[in-house]
C-alpha cells in the first residue's frame, strides 16, 4: 500500500472521530476531579462517535480488505472457480449492504422525532451513520468487484 503513507482525507476523518472521542472522555475525567462536576453530554456524544466509527469505518475495512473471514476451510476448487466464487461473494455482500442502506434510511427518517435523553438530539444522528457507512462500503466493494471483473475480462482475451 504505497499511497497509505500520505495523509489524506480518510486519515483526517479518522483523526476527528478517534481523537475527538479521546478528548471528550478525558474532559469528563478532568471535570470530575478538578471541578467536581460531571459533564452530562459526554456519554451521548461519545456513543455517537463510536457508532460512526463502526459503520463508516467498515467502509475502510473493506477498502483495506481487513474483514474477518474464517480461513479454516481450505478451498479445493480449481483456481478459476475460486475467482468466480469470490466475485459472487462480493456481490452477495453488496446486496446485503444495499439492504442495510435502504432500511437504514427508513430508520433514520423514522427516528427524527425521537430525541436522546440529555442533549435531546434526534436519534437520526445515530441511525444515519448506517446509510452513510453503507455508501462507503458499496463504493469500495464496487471498486473491488470492478477490479475482479476487469481482471477476468483480460484473462478471457
Amino acid at each position: 500500500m504505497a499511497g497509505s503513507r500520505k495523509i489524506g482525507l480518510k486519515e483526517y476523518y479518522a483523526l476527528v472521530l478517534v481523537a475527538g472521542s479521546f478528548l471528550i472522555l478525558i474532559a469528563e475525567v478532568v471535570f470530575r476531579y478538578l471541578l467536581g462536576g460531571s459533564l452530562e453530554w459526554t456519554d451521548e456524544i461519545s456513543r455517537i462517535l463510536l457508532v460512526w466509527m463502526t459503520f463508516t469505518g467498515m467502509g475502510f475495512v473493506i477498502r483495506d480488505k481487513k474483514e474477518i473471514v474464517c480461513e479454516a476451510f481450505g478451498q479445493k476448487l480449481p483456481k478459476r472457480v475460486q475467482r468466480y466464487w469470490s466475485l459472487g461473494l462480493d456481490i452477495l455482500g453488496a446486496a446485503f449492504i444495499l439492504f442495510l442502506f435502504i432500511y437504514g434510511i427508513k430508520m433514520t427518517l423514522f427516528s427524527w422525532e425521537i430525541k436522546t435523553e440529555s442533549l435531546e438530539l434526534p436519534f437520526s444522528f445515530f441511525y444515519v451513520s448506517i446509510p452513510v457507512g453503507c455508501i462507503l462500503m458499496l463504493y469500495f466493494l464496487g471498486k473491488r468487484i470492478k477490479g475482479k471483473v476487469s481482471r477476468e475480462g483480460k484473462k478471457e482475451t
Partner: protein
Amino acid sequence: MIGAVLFVLLILFIVCKIPIAVAMGLSAVVYFLYAGVSFGTFVQQTLSGADSFVLMAIPLFMFSGELMNDGGLTPRMIRLANAFVGHFRGGLGMATVIVCMIFAGTCGSAVAEAAAIGALLIPAMVKQGYPKDLAAAITGAGSELGPIIPPSVPMIIAASISKVPVGKLFMGGMIPGILIGLSFIAVTGVIAGRQKIPIFPKANLKERLLSIKEGLWAILAPAIIIGGMLGGFFTPTEAGAVATAYGFFVGFVVYRELKFSSLPGICYKVLVSTATVMYVVALAKVYTFALTRERVPELVANFLLSLSSSPFLIMLIILIFVLILGMFLSTTPALVLSIPLFVPFVTKLNVDPVWFYTFVTIALCMGTLTPPVALTLYLTSQMADTPPERTFVRMIPYLACMIVVLILSFLYQPIITWVPGLMQSP
C-alpha cells in the same frame, strides 16, 4: 427447530467464506423473513449492538497502545527487562515474556501486542541464536497476555454482552495473567537450557539503574491504568482515555519520539481495527436477537444441564467447546456467538458470573494460538520467517501452561475472583 436452522445456516455461510459479520447478518435476514419481524427492528438491533458506552473503551485502548508503541516505550521496556534477566540462560526469551506482561497492562489485543513486540524482539532473539520457530512461539504465547492482563478488548466485548461490569472482568484476568506469565518464563528457561542457547554477561549496576531510569515511564503506564481502575478513580472507558493521555504525554513530552504528523495515520489504523471488531459485534446483536427470540440459549443450557449434574463435568464440556470454537473462529466472533448462549446457563447453575465470563474469555483468547484459525501464531511465524506448523509445535508447552492455569482457576476460583473483589467503584 428454527434455532437449529439458524446455526446450520451460519456455519454454511461461514464455510463458504462469507465475512463473518455478513454471514450473521444474512442468517438473521432469513430468520426475519421467516418469522415476519420487521426489518426496522433489524436495523435497530444492529445499531444497538454498536451503541454502547462500554464498547467505547475499545478504540481508546487501541489508540493508547499505538501511541505507546510509536512513542518509544517498547524498546525501553526491552532494555529494562533485559538488564535484569538477560544473563540467565534464555534470558532474552524471558525478557520477551516480561515485556509482554508490562505491555499487556496498556494494550488489550494479542495481535496488536505481537505486532509491536515481535517486530523488535523476534529479530533480536534470532540474532542471539534462538531457533526461529522458538522465537515466534515465545512472542506469540507472550502476546496472549495482552487480552488476559487488563485492559482487554475481548473482556470489553464479553462484558458488554453479559452485562457484567467490565472492570470486574478486567481484574479477573489479573492473577491468571501473572501466573501464565510466570509459567512462560519458567518454560522458556527450561527450553533454553535444552537448546543450549548461549549465556550473555550480566548487566552491571550502572546499566541496571540507567535502564530503570529510562524505562520507568513504561512501567508506570500499567500501574496508572490498572491502579486507577482498581482504586475506583475512573471507569474502564475513562481508563482508556487516561491511558491515551499518558501515551501522548510520554510520546510527546518525555521521549519526544512522537510527531504530530503521524497522528492522523495512527488514528486511521485505530479506526480500521475498531470497525473490524465492532461491525462483527453489531451484526452479532441481530443474530443473537433471533436466537434469543427462539429461546435457543435456554434450550442449550437445559441440554447441558441434562447431560450431567456435576458442575465439574459441565464446565469441562464448556471448556472443551470453547477451545474448539476458538480454533475455528477468531476471538471476537467466537465471543459474540458463545457468550449469549451461556447467559441463561450462568443463572441456572448459580456460578459467579465474574468468574465464569473471565474463565471463558481467557479460554477463547487461546484460540488465536491454535490452528486452523490462529491470527497471532501466523503473525509471529511470518515475522520470524518460519512455517506456522513448526511454531505451533514449539507453542505446545506454552499452551499447556495456559490450560494448567485455567484448570487451577477452576479448582480454586479466588485466583480469578479475588482481585475483582478488591475493586472500589468509581
